[in-house]
């Protein structure tokens, strides 16, 4: 406390400042705060999921198959007697991982290509632009289907396909931002003091477009999860008996017409809540970073 009193100009530093800023950001908008709370729950489920669930997500028990939700099985059991609650919680890790990995990958591909295109212009710009246009000429989900079917039915390829279909979005956002910064004062100052173009790109331009890119990443997280779940719903990527939301909904689909709603309902609900949370969070972040685009 005495330290703080002695240096009133910088009352907080390091982690304390970060926490304070975070609290300010969340306090500013209750919806964003709510979404952030949900996000924490999702991350906790992803990290701790397998250790806290009451049942083994893969253990079948035909004696208690197709039981509706009860005190023992909160979300009921599926056709093999597996506990739906345990499976929904455990699946969080895989779905979250797919979303994060594809978003990071598309940032590395699209974000960097876009920055280079906007900063260098010329041929780089033309090639990146043409690539983005070609991808945009496909309905995105259909292209993702084609990519996964062609490259092979694995989780890695789901991640790659999701990243590729998001490429144009990232490339264009990054390009527009970098184009503006190309002739900015601080870039010219860096050039004047003898920095190479590549160094300016990575050390000056890239950090300055990061806020926008992070907003973009959180906005596409929801889409990435939906895309991956859609692909596994039609039988691509994740294979049974792995617990994953999309495939669980697909497995429960047949039972929906005979009234066993809980098998598909709860994984679908989890999926919906996760996507809703990422979309709200993305909107909230955008309002903070870029208030003019608030709708």
């Amino acid at each position, binding site marked *: 406390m005495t330290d703080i009193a002695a240096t009133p100009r910088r009352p907080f530093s390091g982690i304390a400042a970060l926490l304070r800023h975070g609290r300010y950001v969340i306090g500013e908008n209750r919806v964003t705060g709510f979404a952030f709370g949900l996000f924490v729950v999702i991350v906790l489920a992803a990290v701790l999921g397998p250790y806290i669930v009451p049942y083994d997500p893969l253990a079948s028990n035909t004696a208690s198959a197709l039981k509706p939700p009860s005190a023992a099985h909160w979300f009921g059991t599926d056709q093999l007697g597996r506990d739906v609650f345990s499976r929904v919680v455990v699946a969080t890790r895989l779905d979250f991982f797919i979303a994060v990995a594809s978003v990071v990958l598309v940032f590395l591909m699209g974000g960097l290509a876009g920055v280079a295109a906007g900063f260098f212009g010329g041929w780089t710009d033309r090639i990146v632009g043409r690539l983005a246009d070609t991808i945009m000429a496909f309905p995105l989900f*259909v292209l993702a289907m084609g990519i996964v079917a062609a490259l092979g039915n694995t989780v890695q390829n789901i991640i790659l396909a999701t990243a590729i279909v998001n490429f144009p979005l990232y490339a264009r956002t990054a390009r527009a931002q970098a184009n503006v910064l190309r002739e900015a004062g601080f870039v010219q100052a860096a050039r004047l003091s003898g920095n190479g173009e590549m160094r300016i790109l990575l050390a000056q331009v890239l950090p300055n477009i990061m806020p926008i890119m992070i907003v973009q990443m959180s906005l596409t997280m929801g889409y990435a999860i939906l895309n991956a779940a859609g692909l596994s719903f039609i039988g691509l990527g994740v294979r049974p008996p792995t617990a994953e939301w999309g495939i669980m909904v697909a497995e429960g689909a047949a039972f929906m*017409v005979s009234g066993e709603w809980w098998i598909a309902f709860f994984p679908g609900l989890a*999926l919906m809540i996760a996507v809703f949370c990422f979309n709200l969070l993305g909107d909230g972040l955008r309002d903070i970073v870029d208030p003019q685009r608030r709708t």
Partner: protein
Amino acid sequence: MLTMVFKRMLVAVPSLIGVVIVTFLLTRALPGDPAAYFAGPAATQEAIEQIRVKLGLDQPLIVQFGRYVSDLAQGDLGSSLTTGQLVGKEIKARLPASAELTLLGLFVSMLIAIPLGILAATRPGSLIDHACRVMATAGVSLPVFFTGLILVYVFYYLLGWAPAPLGRLDVFFSPPPQVTGFYLIDSLIAGNFELFVASLKQLILPAATLAIFSLAPIARMTRASMLAVLASDFVRTARACGLAPYTVIITYAFRNAMIPVVTTLGMVFSFLLGANVLVEKVFAWPGIGSFAVEALIASDFAPLQGFVLTMAIMYVALNLIIDILYGLIDPRVRLEA
């Protein structure tokens, strides 16, 4: 006007070339040896070699590409491994089912979303505005296959209002004589009203699923562009001249606000064509989406490739139509071109 249409068509050409190249590369990216893949797991070395020559895989890549393009130009999309049917023929037979579903879904969605967006924009901060915003965020968060299943559960299992989600027609009916391929229109042409009702009943749930899915972006865009137009000078002038609020909103603001909404339709179509695949799987709809999914399960690549290509060509064509419409609606675009 014709110059503009022509110029737009020229712009679509590179997209088409890109689409053809990408679908070609997708086959070459098949894991392992495509010849062994097409020959099946039980094939001998000789049979594989034969297929390699038959498919032209022993030729350089550029020759293979030329062959692929010339096959395409003749409408040959290859044939399915499992059924032996020509892919092009199958897709052509199934396309009307998908088109009927998608177009009806889009139509219903526009019918609800556009008035909703206008109401929200004319009463900012009101209950309907908040409802519009919540719906727009919730709508994009709903996995389309999940919405479909919930609708099936509620309207088929619980309420019994809708028929079983098993295709375009109940087994007791036979399809109408084909004119357009759209059962709704064909049954009316045949004068069979009972059949019309039966096919409409089958269509309602899947079309509603697609409508709920595409509602959000259209409503959101209508609201945003309507807000921008309502704040502009010419609307202020119209109001100052004492025109009735209805005239101002419908005659002046609405027509100008529709321009960005038409542009969004391109993006909505990208999502709709993808969502269509999922909806067709949920409702066992015999369209091209379920054709592709069946091929996927059987690891049959030719139908899937044909499907991706057909979808992409349709999408490029749709975007072209939207671009041309855009010129028709907004004369300024025509002048610039």
